[in-house]
């Protein structure tokens, strides 16, 4: 697998009509959902390529001897305000605002230039004409409108658009900055956890997100498994949190791995804004924003890995950063696992399911078969044993359509889009 093709982020836009993916090679590919079409009834709901462009290029910081990867860490869409679509894409150091617009008309009959673009000799022009607009084949253009650079010493892990639609935050390992979408030469630092002496560093910021409705509230998660909620109205620098979420740990079960597997790799508010979900190495937790001392729900993603932590540490898999997502109504959550498995949990029925995203197990329009991992003893037919799991096939990035039961699952260099059965 060419490393550049590995998908590093997946995100639906607000309407769900567009789906963007970013990859390690710095490219963005946008898919668009096909409109309902009577002549091709089966293609309704299919996503086809709409636009693709090179968002970021590899860079080398000679002063610091730092290689800056072009890998797209996150893409976040802006709410649509006119015919064009806007999204923010970021690598480790630079955030870019891209405008994606359609062009389906072309002007013809210019006075000063020929149809092929050559300038006409002004002395030969004897009459004036008005250029007319003629239809042309749809062309989708992507252009960078803003480049937000040089504000992060460490590696950007998150961006989040504010509900005010004017500002957004970007978070790196130690700091969070607030930007205005129109202003690229300045950003405000709102969180700074860098200790005066780096030897005292004990935790880093792993993810951050704005509240979906309250434009003054955001949360950030840490490598120690804690989440801090901050209110920008209380002070300009939000080093002191308004709320601190942490589940108490049973000291007798503490081990070398405890802190590492408690590191939160993703945090997402529910659409309602009342809950938030965090993903750590082995589980997904749902927190009520009104209760700081423990989550209200905990879902085990792949508990069978607890007895494999030694080898997962040796092959670095223990540091894999899985994302998680809510469905549109906040009734279900989804996250990825290994062996191209992904898991979905229904919060109401408490049922969960494991599915696989691979060519072998999914033909177009076939129904996915639930998968099961067996942890020991006799392996039933159709089950897979823990030792047979392929840890190179990890599903780190998944996305759920904002309104319908359509999900996008990135399996290394492949993108799978699954839908509910259409009756």
């Amino acid at each position: 697998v060419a490393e550049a093709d590995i998908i590093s982020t997946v995100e639906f836009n607000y309407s769900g009509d567009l789906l963007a993916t970013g990859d390690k090679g710095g490219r963005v590919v946008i898919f668009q959902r096909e409109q309902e079409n009577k002549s091709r009834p089966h293609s309704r709901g299919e996503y086809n390529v709409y636009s693709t462009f090179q968002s970021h290029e590899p860079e080398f910081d000679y002063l610091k001897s730092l290689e800056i990867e072009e890998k797209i860490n996150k893409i976040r869409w802006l709410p649509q305000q006119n015919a064009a679509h806007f999204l923010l894409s970021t690598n480790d150091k630079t955030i870019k605002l891209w405008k994606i617009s359609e062009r389906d008309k072309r002007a013809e009959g210019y006075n000063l230039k020929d149809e092929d673009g050559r300038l006409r000799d002004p002395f030969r022009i004897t009459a004036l004409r008005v250029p007319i607009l003629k239809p042309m084949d749809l062309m989708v253009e992507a252009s960078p409108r803003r480049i937000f650079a040089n504000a992060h010493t460490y590696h950007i892990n998150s961006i989040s658009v504010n509900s005010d639609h004017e500002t957004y935050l970007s978070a790196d390992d130690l700091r969070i900055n607030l930007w205005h979408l129109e202003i690229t030469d300045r950003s405000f630092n709102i969180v700074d956890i860098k200790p005066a002496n780096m030897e005292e560093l004990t935790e880093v910021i792993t993810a951050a997100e704005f509240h979906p409705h309250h434009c003054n509230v955001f949360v950030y998660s840490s490598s120690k498994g804690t989440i801090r909620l901050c209110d920008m109205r209380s002070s300009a620098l939000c080093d002191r949190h308004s709320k601190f979420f942490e589940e108490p740990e049973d000291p007798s079960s503490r081990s070398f791995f405890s802190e590492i597997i408690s590191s939160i790799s993703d945090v997402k508010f529910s659409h309602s804004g009342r809950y938030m979900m965090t993903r750590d190495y082995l589980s997904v937790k749902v927190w009520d924003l009104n209760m700081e001392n423990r989550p209200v729900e905990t879902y085990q993603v792949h508990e069978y890995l607890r007895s494999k932590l030694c080898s997962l540490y040796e092959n670095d898999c223990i540091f894999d950063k899985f994302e998680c997502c809510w469905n549109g109504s906040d009734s279900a959550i989804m996250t990825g696992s290994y062996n191209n498995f992904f898991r979905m949990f229904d919060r109401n029925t408490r049922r969960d399911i494991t599915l696989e995203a691979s060519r072998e197990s999914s033909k177009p329009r076939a129904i996915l078969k639930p998968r099961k991992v067996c942890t020991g003893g006799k392996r039933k037919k159709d089950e897979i044993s823990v030792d047979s799991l392929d840890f190179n096939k990890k599903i780190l990035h998944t996305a759920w359509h904002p309104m319908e039961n359509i999900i996008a699952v990135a399996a290394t260099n492949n993108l799978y889009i699954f839908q509910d059965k259409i009756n």
Partner: protein
Amino acid sequence: MAAPLGTGARAEEPGQEKQDMQEKETVTPERAEEAKLKAKYPNLGQKPGGSDFLMKRLQKGQKYFDSGDYNMAKAKMKNKQLPSAGPDKNLVTGDHIPTPQDLPQRKSSLVTSKLAG
């Protein structure tokens, strides 16, 4: 881990269950894994989730490129054909001019090499 809320959304940890029943005779799976790791790498850090791990994370992307070496080598090679990177990109010695692109990704391992004892 703390006792879960809710109606059984969380599966019972087999290790935890065992520990409740057999007072300290059986080790939790996590502790067993920890013992395995310590056996393999006895010198593994005193602060497991602390500085080493975090420093590695913060230093991602560090490549060592000396512009002095680069320019000296370029000057020496002025009259000769510039050699290409060659099949073994890790070999950056001799007359080969190092460029940022063909420096090996220096990923320091948290687990000390067995050679280092």
